């Protein structure tokens, strides 16, 4: 039994991060986290990226986590630093992303006295973290931090927050490297894994029997569908899903966060379902007699009105989180566990079949996409140009709104996990900072951050971070002069009263120049390929603004509260008059 080293709390923080394989930290210093920043230069294995706003640190850590499949780390000081992390943590929580937030806190003897820059960050973040803790003593720091990291990354991933008072960062304690083997007696809870002890009643018992039951349902179904979500990406169950699809001939639907979990050019791929899903995709759901859902939560943007969702279908639901089963839709067979293991078991258990007649039926419902956009700089053309410029090694990060739907529907993703977006929380301002995280996780990929003019202006200050740190993200701004998706809702459901949706933008080319990066404005299709190719070839950060039609809409659209059978497919009659 060796004696541990005597280190400060701040040094222990750094050591445990290195133990966990962390190489990149996104953060912003301040009073209560200064001991940590003092220790940081002695740990060159930890690259620190100074962001321009703590929200960006949380989004960048999230983007890094999603792209790498490993822990993303952000650091902030107490008070305003900590509160600025909140949106990023909520985003990571909704999309099950393993993010660790370390926050400084006022010294222990000042807590609860409304000290300068004191805030109850644990209280603030309780409902948006998977786990959080206050470190009361440097002696417990290493174990508590290891436990938090384990909780963030195990089971269904999620954000965790560790609040460290400034005097605990300075306090010296014995540090011993992590012992191999299982963690301490507390274990990782809160991961949605079945509870032990008396709670075993909630655990589905005979998993093998359930897999057989699921396989029998698939064999008996006439119109089966495979719906895959983010869980397939988190579990890296791509090959298993593909085997299951190819063995059965089931058409595959990918949810917004499931996009790129199944190759878009595969003949079995149908598209995205839900509020902006293509009509034939939603129609397939409404006509299906069996839905095999893997790693998705049947979110309301996917189901529309759940009472009218897939009225003919029985549902097999594969998910690692037992509390997702039956939450939004009734489930016939529940398979709780790792998507990769269970999908492999299901693929092995199913009898080979083909669903050719059913697929032909769905193909008959496909509509030819008409000329939906006035002007020639259509979203289709822009997405196609980016796809051509990006080639095989390209990851797309989108923001929230119309451009997000256009890219989701139009970009043909071939490689797994190359589409990263804020799905559950729908956080505008996500793309620019998240793309920094994606780029550092995937230095050999072209990383495009695609935003609207609204979302871009929420976090465009991060261009400075990209320049200072040399993070060559390609920034694309779809500029229509409106908060486009809100404007679309106003057009459809609020009598075209464009209240607070027209939005002014600065001159983005000059903005780029002010940051010392190349910037281009694309006004028409003729300029498109050349500019996008130049942006694609650039070695540093670049900005491309696309001036698109002001009142372009995303079609089709299921009105909020309606069922998947009630799509709006074209401009409403009220808008046709002018």
């Amino acid at each position, binding site marked *: 039994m060796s004696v541990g080293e005597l280190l400060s709390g701040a040094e222990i923080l750094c050591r445990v991060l290195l133990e966990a394989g962390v190489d990149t930290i996104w953060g912003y210093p301040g009073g209560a986290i200064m001991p940590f920043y003092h220790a940081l230069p002695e740990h060159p294995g930890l690259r620190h990226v100074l962001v321009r706003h703590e929200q960006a640190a949380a989004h960048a850590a999230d983007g890094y986590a999603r792209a790498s499949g490993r822990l993303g780390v952000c650091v902030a000081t107490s008070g305003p630093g900590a509160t600025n992390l909140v949106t990023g943590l909520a985003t990571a929580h909704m999309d099950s992303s393993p993010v660790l937030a370390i926050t400084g806190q006022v010294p222990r003897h000042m807590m609860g006295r409304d000290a300068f820059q004191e805030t109850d960050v*644990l*209280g603030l973040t*309780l*409902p948006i973290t*998977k*786990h*959080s*803790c*206050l470190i009361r003593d440097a002696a417990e720091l290493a174990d508590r931090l290891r436990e938090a990291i384990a*909780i963030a990354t195990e089971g269904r991933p999620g954000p965790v927050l560790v609040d460290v008072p400034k005097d605990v960062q300075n306090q010296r304690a014995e540090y011993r490297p992590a012992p191999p083997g299982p963690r301490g007696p*507390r274990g990782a*809870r*809160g*991961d*949605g894994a*079945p*509870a*032990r*002890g*008396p*709670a*075993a*009643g*909630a*655990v*589905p*018992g*005979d998993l093998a029997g359930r897999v057989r039951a699921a396989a029998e349902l698939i064999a008996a179904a006439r119109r089966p569908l495979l719906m895959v979500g983010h869980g397939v990406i988190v579990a890296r169950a791509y090959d298993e899903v593909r085997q299951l699809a190819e063995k059965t001939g089931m058409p595959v639907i990918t949810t917004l966060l499931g996009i790129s979990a199944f190759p878009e050019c595969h003949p079995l791929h149908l598209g995205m379902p839900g509020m902006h899903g293509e009509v034939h995709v939603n129609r397939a759901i409404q006509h299906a007699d069996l839905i095999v859902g893997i790693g998705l939560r049947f979110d309301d943007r996917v189901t529309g009105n759940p009472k009218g969702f897939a009225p003919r279908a029985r549902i097999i639901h594969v998910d690692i*989180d*037992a*509390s997702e*089963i*039956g*939450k939004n839709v009734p*489930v016939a067979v*529940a398979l709780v566990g790792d998507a990769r293991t269970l999908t492999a078991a299901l693929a092995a258990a199913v009898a080979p079949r083909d669903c050719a007649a059913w697929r032909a039926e769905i193909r008959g419902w496909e509509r030819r996409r008409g000329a939906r956009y006035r002007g020639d700089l259509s979203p289709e053309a822009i997405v196609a140009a980016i796809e051509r410029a990006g080639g095989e090694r390209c990851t797309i990060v989108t923001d929230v709104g119309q451009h997000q739907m256009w890219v989701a529907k139009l970009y043909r993703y071939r490689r797994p996990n190359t589409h990263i977006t804020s799905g559950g929380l729908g956080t505008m301002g996500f793309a620019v900072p998240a793309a920094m995280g994606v780029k550092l996780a995937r230095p050999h990929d072209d990383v495009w951050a695609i935003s609207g003019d609204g979302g871009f202006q929420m976090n465009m200050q991060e261009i400075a971070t990209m320049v200072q740190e040399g993070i060559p993200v390609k920034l694309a701004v779809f500029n229509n002069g409106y908060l486009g998706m809100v404007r679309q809702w106003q057009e459809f459901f609020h009598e075209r009263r464009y209240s607070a949706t027209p939005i002014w933008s600065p001159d983005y080319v000059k903005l780029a120049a002010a940051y010392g990066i190349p910037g281009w404005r694309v006004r028409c299709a003729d300029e498109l390929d050349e500019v996008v190719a130049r942006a694609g070839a650039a070695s540093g950060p670049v900005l491309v603004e696309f001036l698109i039609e002001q009142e372009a809409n995303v079609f089709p659209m299921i009105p909020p509260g309606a069922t998947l059978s009630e799509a709006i497919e074209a401009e409403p009659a009220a808008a046709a008059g002018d």
Partner: protein
Amino acid sequence: MGQALAVVLDRELLALSRAMGELRRRNLAITSLAVGPADVPGCLRLTVILDTDDATAEMTMKKMHKVSGVRAATRFPAEEGVARELALVKVRVTPERYAEFLDVCDTFKATVVDEAPDQAIVQLAGPGALVLAFVRALEGFGILELTRTGTVALPRTAAAERAAAPAS
């Protein structure tokens, strides 16, 4: 009477806050809450009586399983378990009405645990409805102060076996 939810969690306020947060954000109708030491060392046992349907209680239990710091969560229809609460009532009792007061206590099998001139503290343990009836009976004397623990409950053996059966 509702659904009883029994949650065993780490004995720390943060874990308790998280568990309460699960109840709060779901906007559930809560009839009663009780917290005390659990049979597991270092743990609390939280008993919640929910006025809700079976499916909501099931979902709440599953969500409780996910809460960081929660060790176990079970549920059962409260009427299928043994449910009790304890009340302490400080009552004004004048010497003239003392015999009448003792009669009421006797009827409910309540115990006088403290006496002072013109007042007494009386204790009663029992099902919630009994406690309520007792409090009503004492109102005529004048209740000075009242505290109730909230309901604690255990499933009867038959109900416990059903709860342990695989879900769905």
